[in-house]
């Protein structure tokens, strides 16, 4: 009888799985059970149960509804487990029925999708796309492996199914793919992803400890987004634990220098060697951590600007291995003769015709109608003295035509506090090397410096950003401390470096002037005591600011990164380590636990590439 039952059942299991066949089997079961020995009360009860259930099912099928699997499962489970263990034959029989019935559940259960099942990993060829998919061999996820009786059913399956019935792969259960197919972002997959681990990062001006930084291509990206999209880093740089007992390396944005007149023997006002000079300077500045800078052109004749500005314009943009030239800083010639500094007084002029005079001097680079540079002007900063004739009108003209694209800076001026305030209202947003070449600070006449202190500017006018040359020579440390603490958010570090910076010699040319070195960091016009620019480097200035102003290293670095970027309107792309910023950053080694000014530039990255490593 058992054999016949097996034969019948295999027929049913192997053939169609529709409800009708199942009810037939149920009928068969009930009849076979009721044919058993009448001593066992349970089997009689069982037979009655089975027959009534199968009748109900048959009626339901006949009426056109489908006998749901759950109902059938309930029936079968009640059949199976209502048998007393002493009746071993019934027990085995029913457990066989249960396993067979449960195995042959149709695939179209409500929980599974109606799509065709994906192929198993074993059948997919290995290719670069799926190489990183989960290497775990997937076991088939059958429906009855879930649920409260998962363990029990697995046990049953192992006992009976493997030995007696069909092998596992006959079931064609759909496999769940574990690959990152849902989130894959293949558009950037070609770019290299670098992850920096265990660093202290300067984010938004504050140090965040124990952070990771992800770089993709030449931009900084959000690590969590990449991680949950399934992207693994191509290169992992672990910055922790390198120097035990000392502070962790500090990752900061690349420094931005808005005033550089020359470097390494090249002067930017000299057109003959300008192209070569820009390349050499751009390459050499990287080792000081300066990743973006503005070549500054001192007071010159109009034709000089026509020659020099196109060359600077051509060198703009990001080039691997070179610091980025953001634009040009035009210092003069609309500045005060009595505050000439190291400029050539012959080229100075005023602007009686206002903005028109500026256009006449600078040419098409300032002329709005020439539309050479309408969207992206090479001129970024113009330094003027606002007390000159017609200057306020000229400043207003610049602001009207160019808006925020050109920043007007106050410098080389003898204006007093009121005139300085008026110029800020007209549109001046920066002060060029505060304290140098301007009206000195006097307690009843603060001069331009007063604008960063108390100012009765209208509400919506911001106090100007101010650059300081923190080499200890141009300004007394005490003055720097006072100015910095008066308005820390506006303090910018500039080097105002001239051609002699980065060199060891004693005599150089600055524009058309002879200058000579007076001290280790002091350069004067030959034969005088007038400072002729500085030979400072940016890390030196940052360390000095920590010492002079009493601020932390993070705040001093902000003055070299965030504030210059904000003054140029490029904060977010430069001067920042938030996602979306350019991947120009510097890793500083802090050399002392107590002295924040003791640091060195350890590694410099430009556009995601390491361009400098300290020996």
């Amino acid at each position: 009888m058992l054999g016949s039952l097996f034969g019948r059942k295999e027929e049913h299991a192997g053939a169609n799985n529709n409800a009708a066949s199942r009810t037939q089997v149920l009928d068969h079961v009930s009849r076979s059970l009721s044919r058993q020995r009448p001593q066992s009360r349970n089997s009689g009860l069982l037979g009655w149960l089975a027959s009534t259930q199968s009748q109900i099912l048959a009626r339901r099928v006949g009426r056109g509804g489908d006998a749901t699997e759950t109902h059938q499962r309930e029936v079968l489970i009640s059949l199976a487990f209502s048998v007393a263990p002493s009746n071993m034959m019934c027990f085995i029989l029913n457990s066989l029925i249960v396993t067979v019935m449960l195995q042959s559940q149709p695939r179209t259960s409500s929980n599974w999708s109606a799509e065709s099942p994906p192929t198993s990993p074993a059948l997919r060829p290995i290719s670069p796309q799926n190489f990183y998919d989960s290497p775990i061999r997937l076991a088939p996820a059958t429906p009855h492996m879930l649920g409260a009786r998962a363990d029990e059913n697995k046990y049953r399956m192992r006992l009976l199914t493997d030995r007696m019935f069909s092998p596992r792969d006959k079931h064609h259960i759909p496999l769940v793919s574990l690959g990152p197919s849902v989130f894959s972002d293949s558009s950037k997959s070609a770019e290299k992803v670098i992850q920096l681990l265990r660093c202290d990062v300067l984010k938004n001006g504050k140090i965040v400890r124990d952070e990771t930084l992800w770089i993709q291509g030449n931009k900084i990206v959000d690590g969590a987004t990449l991680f949950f999209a399934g992207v693994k880093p191509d290169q992992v740089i672990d910055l922790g634990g390198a120097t035990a007992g000392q502070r962790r390396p500090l990752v900061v944005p690349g420094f931005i220098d808005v005033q550089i007149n020359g470097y390494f023997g090249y002067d930017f006002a000299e057109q003959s060697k300008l192209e070569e000079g820009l390349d050499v300077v751009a390459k050499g500045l990287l080792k000081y951590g300066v990743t973006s800078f503005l070549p500054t052109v001192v007071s010159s004749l109009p034709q000089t600007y026509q020659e020099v500005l196109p060359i600077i314009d051509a060198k703009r943009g990001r080039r691997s291995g070179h610091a980025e030239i953001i634009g040009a800083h035009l210092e003069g010639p609309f500045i005060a003769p009595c505050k000439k500094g190291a400029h050539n007084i012959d080229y100075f002029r005023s602007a009686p015709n206002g903005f028109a005079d500026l256009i006449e001097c600078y040419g098409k680079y300032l002329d709005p109608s020439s539309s050479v540079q309408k969207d992206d002007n090479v001129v970024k900063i113009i330094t003027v003295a606002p007390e000159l004739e017609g200057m306020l009108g000229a400043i207003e003209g610049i602001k009207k035509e160019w808006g925020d694209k050109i920043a007007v800076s106050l410098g080389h001026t003898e204006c007093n506090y009121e005139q300085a305030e008026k110029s800020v209202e007209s549109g001046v947003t920066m002060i060029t090397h505060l304290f140098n070449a301007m009206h000195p600070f006097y307690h009843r006449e603060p001069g331009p410096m007063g604008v960063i202190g108390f100012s009765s500017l209208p509400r919506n006018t911001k106090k100007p950003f101010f650059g300081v040359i923190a080499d200890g020579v141009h300004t007394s440390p005490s003055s720097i401390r006072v100015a910095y603490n008066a308005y820390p958010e506006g303090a910018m570090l500039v080097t105002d470096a001239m051609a002699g910076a980065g060199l060891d010699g004693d005599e150089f040319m600055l524009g058309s002037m002879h200058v000579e070195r007076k001290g280790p960091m002091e350069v004067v016009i030959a034969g005088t005591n007038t400072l002729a620019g500085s030979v400072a480097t940016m890390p030196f200035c940052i360390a000095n600011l920590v010492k002079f102003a009493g601020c932390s290293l993070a705040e001093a670095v902000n003055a070299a990164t965030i504030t210059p970027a904000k003054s140029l309107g490029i904060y977010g792309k430069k001067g920042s380590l938030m996602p979306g910023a350019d991947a120009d950053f510097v890793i500083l080694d802090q050399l002392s636990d107590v002295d924040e000014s003791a640091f060195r530039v350890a590694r410099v990255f430009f556009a995601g590439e390491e361009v400098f490593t300290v020996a």
Partner: protein
Amino acid sequence: MRLIIKDNYDDVCKYTSEYILNRINEFNPTPERPFVIGLPTGSSPLGVYKKLVNFHREGMLSFKNVITFNMDEYVHLPRDHPESYHSFMWENLFKHVDIPPQNVNILDGNAKDLERECTEYEAKIAAVGGIELFLGGIGPDGHIAFNEPGSSLSSRTRIKTLAYETIIANSRFFGGDVNKVPKLSLTVGVGTVMDAREVVILISGAGKALALAKCIEEGVNHMWTVSAIQLHPRGMIVCDDDATLELHVKTVKYFKSIEKVHRLLTTEESKVGMDGKVRYSATK
């Protein structure tokens, strides 16, 4: 069930993290046989994650062949929201360790078909062979994951409405505004957690004392869903002294005495090992 009573929260984290470290290293996971672990969120496991990160940094623990399944996630909260559980796990664990991204499984609260997401999650767990160790915390109302009181003890991964008490408790992360807190979440069920081969629950602080007492000294009750651990063959609860404030003195003394014997057995001089085999030499 083992109840490990430690002095304070730091010791609880130390014990749990060392336990996980030993479990993973003894399991010796390989790509073909990975270690599947279930992970919680909240304030209780923060110390454990910190210590696991330290183990990783010292080279003692690698996550290359560890697959993780998280317990829960808010529904319709953007994945990069600072309070989403994706962000929590990223900030506290995944950022610092070498786990491959495809080994990380967290429920997606922004899936188009949430029910299907839950069922696929269950299928993923089954596909990798089930969870080896499920780490969890407990709420003051005795809930595990987001299975609030009244959740079925055989429940699976599903969408769950958050209790008002939970929403108020979580509003501190959303600026104190209860309207900003998500009201739905996807959570593993009590049944899913108890299907793991081992369950470790972290309970610390006096606020959880009543929950602990209800869960281990009283019956299995759907009002205190962690009580389902009583039916688990390998359950472990690690708690600190403050959490035992509502337990009977007898219970505390009993479990402390067991651990004392355990410590004796795991010393080098012990003649009988933890597996019951007699050791004839001093070394294991």
